């Protein structure tokens, strides 16, 4: 075996390797980095964790559904900004005014003056017109169903012409579309697959560096708002689990992140520099497949069962065990009682009962013919009141909800069996209608106007019979002509008073039918490190929806915060 004759040499190689690795390790430990986010010397910098996991691929294309999160809001801006955290008028961004014509077929927008692209070129209405025309002409990019042509009538005015009445398109157009520069994008070969490596936008920051593990944005010196932004650099990182995120937070490495951390108060107990804000926005609800006529099967098709569930659950206990105490009170109108107070017509329907009302629940079930069986579960016409509720494995707070509700509903004779599925299967069941009960949430549209949830979840145009894919959103298979008419009427007008009258009709129906049974408003917890930057939204001043994953609001927050002066 001639291969191994060089014995002394082999030993030498061994020792050399050992020495080298030890030396390397000790040297690297010595040069071991200060893992804090701020580099005092080069200006103020913060680190953001926006929920990105795994490797990061470069995509700053504002039209792409897989664009990196800061693209919309931080690098590119929209015409207006809608605040979903508290009641307020849309804030003008790249537009300073807009006006509809009588029939809602023409929208005139006045754009802001004195705005520059971050490559120095001036911004004008021509860019806005170009953006909307590009979307209209490219079906792959037209995710909002825009059916309009745009024309820049002068330096600062754009007119959008629609084929039909389109009042309800307003938030999508004004608040959910990033404006791109015509002088760059007219030469782009394929706007669908364009990666847009050095994005030219009007936003407060521009891209400084990019790697597959992290990327950084730097201040845009030409930003149109005087004195903003105050922060010099924003860095984004990727973390795998909530545990890794909480470790980074408590070690002071992350300045801004949104994660539901169980026991948050305890984690932050001794940490002076850490603060959090809670902006509940999504109503956690039990989706029911409620319409027997469209093929739903099971006891939940009986409205009495749904009402009984609504009354029997103990929302206080659910909030404590599953919501961490942070959840807000839900409303049977599926709106947010605080932010949407003006849209909730009947004060009786403002908030759902917070404690279990087993007496009412029992009465409703008794009156409907569900008699208590020997094993404690109700029966009617030979059918047991047994329901399955599906959840996604990994959504531990929803799983806790199921465990608690199972006990609570047993008190009124309902047998609830939770099942855990993969996300794919759960989603397929919901869109196809092959479920009885499902835990999901409702909310977060382009603007707080109730038209969007009511249209998406309750209008029969957006549903299909069980077995077909109801991808438009009415998974409960709800079909009520009164509601349909009211929603359509509300969508055809721009007058808020008229809309309110129609919503009153809708709410009267849905609080009775309850195809979606609200539980509570799921907290959106966002954690901040206040030692490097201040001016974050607080529980008293929710000037923006603070979640680090939210598009558009991220730009508002990043340009509002200021560095902490030592």
């Amino acid at each position, binding site marked *: 075996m001639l291969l191994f004759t060089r014995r002394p040499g082999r030993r030498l190689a061994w020792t050399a390797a050992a020495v080298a690795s030890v030396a390397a390790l000790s040297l690297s430990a010595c040069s071991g980095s200060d893992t804090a986010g701020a580099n005092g010397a080069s200006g103020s910098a913060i680190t953001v964790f926006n929920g990105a996991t795994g490797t990061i691929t470069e995509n700053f294309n504002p039209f792409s559904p897989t664009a990196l999160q800061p693209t919309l809001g931080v690098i590119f801006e929209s015409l207006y900004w809608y605040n979903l955290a508290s009641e307020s008028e849309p804030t003008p961004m790249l537009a300073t005014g807009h006006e509809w014509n009588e029939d809602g077929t023409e929208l005139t927008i006045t754009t802001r003056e004195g705005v520059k692209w971050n490559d120095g070129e001036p911004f004008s209405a021509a860019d806005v017109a170009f953006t909307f025309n590009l979307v209209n002409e490219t079906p792959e990019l037209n995710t909002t169903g825009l059916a309009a042509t745009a024309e820049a009538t002068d330096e600062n005015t754009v007119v959008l012409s629609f084929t039909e009445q389109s009042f309800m398109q307003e938030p999508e157009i004004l608040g959910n579309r990033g404006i791109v520069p015509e002088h760059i994008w007219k030469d782009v070969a394929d706007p669908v697959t364009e990666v847009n490596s050095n994005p030219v936008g009007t936003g407060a920051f521009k891209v400084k560096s990019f790697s597959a593990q992290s990327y950084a944005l730097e201040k845009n010196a030409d930003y149109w708002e005087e004195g903003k932004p105050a922060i010099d650099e924003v860095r984004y990182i990727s973390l795998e689990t909530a545990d890794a995120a909480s470790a980074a937070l408590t070690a002071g490495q992350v300045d801004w992140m949104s994660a539901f951390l169980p*026991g948050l108060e305890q984690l932050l107990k001794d940490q002076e520099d850490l603060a959090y804000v809670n902006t509940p926005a999504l109503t956690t609800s039990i989706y029911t497949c409620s319409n027997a006529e469209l093929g739903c099967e099971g006891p939940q098709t009986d409205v009495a069962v749904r009402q009984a569930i609504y009354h029997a659950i103990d929302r206080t206990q659910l909030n404590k065990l599953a919501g961490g105490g942070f959840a807000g009170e839900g409303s049977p109108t599926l709106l947010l009682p605080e932010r949407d107070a003006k849209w909730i017509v009947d004060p009786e329907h403002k908030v759902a009962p917070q404690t279990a009302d087993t007496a009412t629940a029992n009465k409703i079930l008794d009156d409907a013919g569900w008699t208590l069986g020997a094993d404690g579960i109700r029966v009617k016409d030979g059918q047991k009141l047994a329901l399955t509720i599906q959840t996604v494995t990994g959504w531990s707070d929803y799983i806790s909800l199921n465990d608690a509700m*199972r006990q609570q509903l047993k008190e009124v004779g309902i047998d609830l069996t939770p099942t855990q599925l993969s996300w794919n299967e759960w989603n397929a069941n919901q869109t196809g209608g092959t479920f009885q009960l499902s835990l999901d949430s409702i909310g977060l549209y382009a603007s707080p106007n109730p038209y969007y949830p009511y249209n998406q979840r309750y209008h029969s145009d957006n549903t299909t019979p069980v077995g077909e894919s109801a991808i438009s959103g009415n998974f409960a298979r709800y079909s009520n002509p009164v509601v349909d008419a009211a929603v359509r009427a509300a969508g055809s007008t721009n007058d808020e008073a008229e809309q309110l009258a129609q919503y009153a009709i809708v709410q009267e129906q849905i609080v009775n039918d309850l195809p979606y049974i609200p539980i509570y408003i799921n907290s959106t917890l966002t954690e901040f490190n206040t030692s490097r930057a201040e001016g974050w939204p607080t529980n008293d001043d929710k000037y923006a929806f603070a979640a680090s994953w939210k598009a558009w609001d991220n730009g508002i927050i990043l340009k509002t915060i200021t560095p902490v002066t030592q």
Partner: protein
Amino acid sequence: MALTTQDPTIAESESHLPAPSGRTRRRSLPPMTLKLGIGLSIAGAIALFGLIGPYLVGDPSRVDNVGLSAPGGGFLLGTTQTGQDVFAQLAHATRGSLTIGLVVGVLTLVLSTFFGVVGAYVGGVVDESFSLFSNVMLVIPGLPLVIVISSYVPDKSVWLIAFVLALTSWAGSARVLRGFTLSLRNRDYVLASRVSGERSWRILTVEVLPNLIPLLASQVVFAVIFAILGEAGLSFLGLGASGSFTWGTMLYYAQNGLALRLGAWWWFIPPGLMLALFGAALSLINFSIDEIINPKLRSQTRAVRRSWRMSRAQLQSAKESTL
């Protein structure tokens, strides 16, 4: 990683196994040593806990307003984030994990014996095709396959996970068994039986299989350890049977509930500890089985040397005097 301590190609060149028959078959059982005693008693205790425990403890899914609390106040091992009894969950989890281990052990035994032993004994085309099949199964990446298969089936039960784990892990054992069987096939006593007209299946069951029992046992124990650890890994990734209680799913929920970070050691430590103890016990049992397969190991332990009551110096001089 489950590594065989005997490579079949080497084993073929050194045939040290005696042929048991009749009275001497008793030597197949491992002699009781301290290691074996400890291993059996720990494994036995855990198995007993898993078998009887669930009948004695309360409802593991019952939520309680007390939330996350340390041991005490009626809860032996404290409670989880939703006030569920950790000790009760541990009992049910033991049963779940042991079920997985058992199913995988049995399936691995059946599959690897069939494809390894029978194939090698029969020889010819059957052997070639069985060997090809198990080699192909071996090179197909196991963990990704498990991930994909288990995400395909909607309602993941403990049985499904066990089945999928067995499916992706029998090939290694089959290869080892095949190697041994090939060497056994050419032994004198087997050839003699053939010549004397014994039927194939009788030779297989009476002459060949008993020799393989120690190796089979070792492989099955490895498979059980691998299954339980594999299930824990899958559950950690969120791909396990999260609707049922196993040690892996308990750890998954503890991890999601930030148990370690919140200082809730009573939730995070016990399942992992049980896993480690059970695995350790099985490893100790495997050591003892190894000593059957390779009798030289038996005589080398410190315990045996101590029983000779000779010091190291005496041993050294004894050794030198024999050279």
